């Protein structure tokens, strides 16, 4: 084998000599361009718009921090902003139930009986359905006259309960609907994780007389950490993004009691209640800041891992 130099170095083009340095940028250019125009720049624009009063058409009037001041007073007066923020916290906490629920179903299904693969698919498939349809399905499920829930309660002589019409229940009702697909997602993450659990460690645990919950806690869960991490990330993000279900099931009602920040922002900026872009942007900024806390934590975890990998 002999290497034959095809072209003398001097005559090679500038690109050819520098291609290792230039190629990545050429390959990244379209992606970065799109992402910058539609994602990165709009974030900063929203920050700027939040300092204006603007109906989306006419001229924008600079009002400094007044939009944030108004939000502050809404918070103090326990008005819409307070309710939305409170509901966001409820969503965050309750939505995390998807993780243990998903683990539970995964453990239940991690067997090898005949037809189990079909069972796993069918348990998973609520996740594939659009949230809009999930919302419709559950608003009928809760319906006080013919809903499955009240027919079920009726068997025990209870009810009827109008879940979506009750200010104290409505948010929990919507979250329950959201937990349905989210649990399916966590389940599939854990099923994949369980598949990769080291059988030798289980055997070793059995020899040490670890059983049931003890085995789960000390031997299985530590090995499921990557799955838990991803389940945590997608559940938090999902909880803070809750919009579709609220919009479909209640439209924020009754009396605005099921609003969250994501929905309230939309309502303020783009609905029959008016086009207050600046105020909407201010709400979005608040939501963004909350989310940024989580994003920073996720990135930090990923960064540590990247360091470990090299």
């Amino acid at each position, binding site marked *: 084998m002999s290497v034959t130099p095809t072209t003398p170095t001097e005559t090679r083009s500038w690109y050819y000599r520098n*291609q*290792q*340095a230039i*190629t*990545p940028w050429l*390959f*990244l250019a*379209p*992606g*970065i361009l799109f992402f910058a*125009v*539609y994602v990165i720049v*709009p974030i900063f624009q*929203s920050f700027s*718009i939040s300092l204006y009063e603007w109906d989306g058409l006419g001229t924008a009037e600079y009002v400094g921090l007044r939009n944030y001041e108004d939000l502050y007073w809404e918070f103090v007066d326990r008005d819409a902003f307070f309710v939305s923020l409170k509901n966001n916290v409820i969503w965050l906490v309750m939505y995390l139930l998807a993780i243990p629920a998903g683990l539970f179903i995964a453990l239940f299904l*991690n*067997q090898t*009986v005949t037809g189990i693969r079909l069972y796993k698919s*069918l*348990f*998973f*498939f*609520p996740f*594939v*359905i*659009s*949230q*809009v*349809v999930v919302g*419709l*399905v*559950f608003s*009928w499920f809760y319906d006080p006259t*013919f809903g499955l829930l009240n027919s079920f309660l009726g068997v025990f002589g209870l009810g009827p309960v109008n879940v979506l019409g009750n200010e104290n229940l409505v948010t929990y009702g919507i979250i329950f609907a959201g937990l*349905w697909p989210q649990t399916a997602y966590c389940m*599939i*993450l854990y099923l994949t994780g369980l598949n*990769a*659990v080291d059988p030798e460690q*289980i055997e070793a645990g059995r020899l040490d007389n670890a059983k049931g919950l003890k*085995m*789960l806690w000390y031997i299985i869960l530590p090995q499921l950490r*990557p799955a838990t991490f991803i389940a945590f990330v997608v559940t938090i*993000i999902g909880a803070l993004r809750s*919009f*579709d279900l609220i*919009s479909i099931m209640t439209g924020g009602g009754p009396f605005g009691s099921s609003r969250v920040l*994501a929905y309230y922002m*939309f309502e303020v*900026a*783009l609905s029959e209640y008016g086009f207050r*872009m600046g105020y909407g*942007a201010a*709400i*979005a900024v608040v939501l*963004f800041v909350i989310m940024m806390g989580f*994003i920073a934590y*996720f*990135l930090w975890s990923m960064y540590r891992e*990247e360091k470990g990998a090299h």
Partner: protein
Amino acid sequence: MFPTPIEKQSAGAQVAYKTLLPVALLMWLAPLLAVALFSIKPDTDFTNANYWGLPSSFEFAHNYGQVFFNSDMPRYLLNSFLITVPTVIGAVALSAMGGFALGIYKFRANLWIFFMFVAGNFVPFQILMVPVRDLTLGLGLYNTKTGLVLFHIAFQTGFCTLFMRNFIRSLPYELIEAARVEGVAEWRIFWYVVLPLMKPALAALSVLIFTFIWNDYFWAVVLTQGPESQPVTAGITSFNAQFRAAYHLMSAGSIVAALPPVAMFFLMQKHFIAGLTLGAVK
């Protein structure tokens, strides 16, 4: 395997498990089965309050016929396809290139650009809403499928690049070095060496993005209105307004709207789950 395989347990436990399995599934899917039952009932069952009994007549063809021939539903479905398919192609193409650049080359900004894509992918939609709507209006693309596609491509590029980059990192780097020693140009390495190895990732991402975009509701409401450009998720609300209180038709409509991603999932299950659980195993 954990928990202990059921075959190793008593006969009683095995029987209990095998009966519990279908019962649990029925309970899990009950809300959906209810809608499926509604969708084949005749109108009269609802006026006679026969909600949960057997359908007094089997109206599958009639109800679904109404959805397909007597409403805007086919229009919405077509719009959904015309929005989803170009988005899948665009996002997968951009991110295959981006992922290649971030996965193969070492340069100082590499990790920062990668984190930009990851972070952007987690951002709440609402912080983008006003500027993106404004931009789309400015481009004259408000209420067009193109406007929606362009945004979706841009946003999905974040997640897709993360996915592609991690996949390319797992390929044997020696292949690329060998190609370089042979004097293969960098873009040819991408096209002839890396891309053929990325087929599983391309398949997984395509199915995932198809589902995500098909199911998108927020951006459909923000960037479009009316049957000429709205996808089915947004269209279903007008569909339901048209058939107010006609639960049999609303149920049939919902099922039709949900079907394409479900079909996609059952056909491409392996790829779908591989994509969704990326990183769940070390």
